[in-house]
């Protein structure tokens, strides 16, 4: 059975995953577009940097983020100098960490989708009077639909299951920064297996339904290519 804490953790998790995914889509889309279309010689350096956060174990990445966000770290120090609060152990901190960590899962599929689209549809839209921004929204995004789907699913799911980073910079504070993945982990650690099974089961079921809906819905809007 779910405790009140667990329910709250689930709520925080969904909030975190949604916000992270939205932010990732917002900042990832222009980056992916640029990566797909730019002819800059040293683009590959940026591409390599984007995939880097992946190779560090999440807890370690979280550790470094913690140092960076902490009062002695560059970001945290800056925040404090500006009179702001430290971001560590806050929900905002969680969002920053998750965004950082799930970035490649959003950018890479989008980049591929934009690339596969070719230049022609955008040229046609331009001759039909659509401004760059307008054609980006009315042509590029719909045509990159399956890339967006993948990006969203991977980004969202990865943030759901995200753990190490969140544990480190979130501080696992129930009701504030404890997400469901850590709640399950805590139950497992505390040998409360039944509880762990329950939450895992609910999470899986919920995710399965969400994913199923997304994919089933997507079928209807598939862009057919020949």
């Amino acid at each position, binding site marked *: 059975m779910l405790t009140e804490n667990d329910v709250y953790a689930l709520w925080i998790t969904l909030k975190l995953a949604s916000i992270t995914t939205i932010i990732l889509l917002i900042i990832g889309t222009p980056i992916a577009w640029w990566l797909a279309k730019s002819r800059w010689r040293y683009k590959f350096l940026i591409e390599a940097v984007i995939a880097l956060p992946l190779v560090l174990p999440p*807890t370690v990445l979280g*550790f470094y983020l*913690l*140092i960076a*966000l*902490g*009062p*002695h*770290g560059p970001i*945290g120090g800056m925040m404090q100098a500006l009179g702001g609060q*430290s971001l*560590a*152990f806050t929900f905002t901190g969680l969002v920053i960490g998750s965004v950082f960590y799930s970035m490649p899962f959003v950018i890479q599929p989008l980049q591929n989708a934009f690339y596969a689209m070719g230049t022609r549809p955008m040229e046609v839209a331009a001759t039909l009077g659509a401004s760059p921004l307008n054609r980006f929204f009315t042509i590029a995004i719909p045509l990159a639909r399956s890339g967006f789907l993948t990006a969203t699913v991977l980004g969202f799911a990865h943030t759901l299951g995200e753990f190490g980073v969140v*544990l*480190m910079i979130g*501080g*696992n*504070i*129930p*009701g504030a920064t*404890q997400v469901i993945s850590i709640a399950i982990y*805590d139950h*497992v*650690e*505390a*040998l409360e297996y039944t509880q762990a099974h329950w939450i895992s089961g609910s999470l899986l079921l919920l995710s399965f339904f969400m994913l199923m809906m997304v994919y089933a819905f997507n079928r209807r809007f598939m862009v057919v290519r020949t």
Partner: protein
Amino acid sequence: DTIRIAVASNFSHAIKDIAHRFEVQTGHKVILIFGSSGKHYAQIINGAPFELFFSADTIRPSLLEKKGLIQDNSRFTYAIGQVVLWSPNHSLIDKTAQILHKASFRYLAVANPKLAPYGKAAQQILTQQGLWTTLRLRMVRGENIGQTFQFVKSGNAELGFVAFSQIKSPDKKIKGSYWKPDQALYDPIQQQAVLLKNNDLARAFLKYIKQDEALNIIRAYGYRTP
């Protein structure tokens, strides 16, 4: 009022019990944050909002003390852990743990001696028996004592050195067979706590945990008390 207490995962059951009673008696709220002591340490030096820290060892509290991050003279031992060799199999372990010498098993689970005091204790016990090197290849190492327990519990390792507190709880009978080595065979596993912030409620909690009511609970969960 509310206090936040970072607690080593292995002490979770006992402290939940204690915190619950404390909450009932005082009407204040206690938020418990479980995790590995290493992580908690890293978080505390980076400004985590904890009032109390219940570590699984003595090292981290004393390091914090050295750094001047704790309230003066607040460091004390709240529990002393006991290590046991345990197997869910009822007949595997006899009173003298002959099985260790016979080595008639595939895997022996031990917590990482470098990270977990229980692992260090297991190492000391095995070294004294001249088994540490011979069994090395059969040892699987849990990152912490919780994971070590899971190795054994899931049956993947036939037996392992776990915390007595993991198999003993006030209301349940111990399942399987175990051997409880003599205390003299290893350095006492002192678990220390420190007060991080000058907070009255936190001081009240510390006071409470040193009283008999709390000490009884601690003992009922398989720890010794100082």
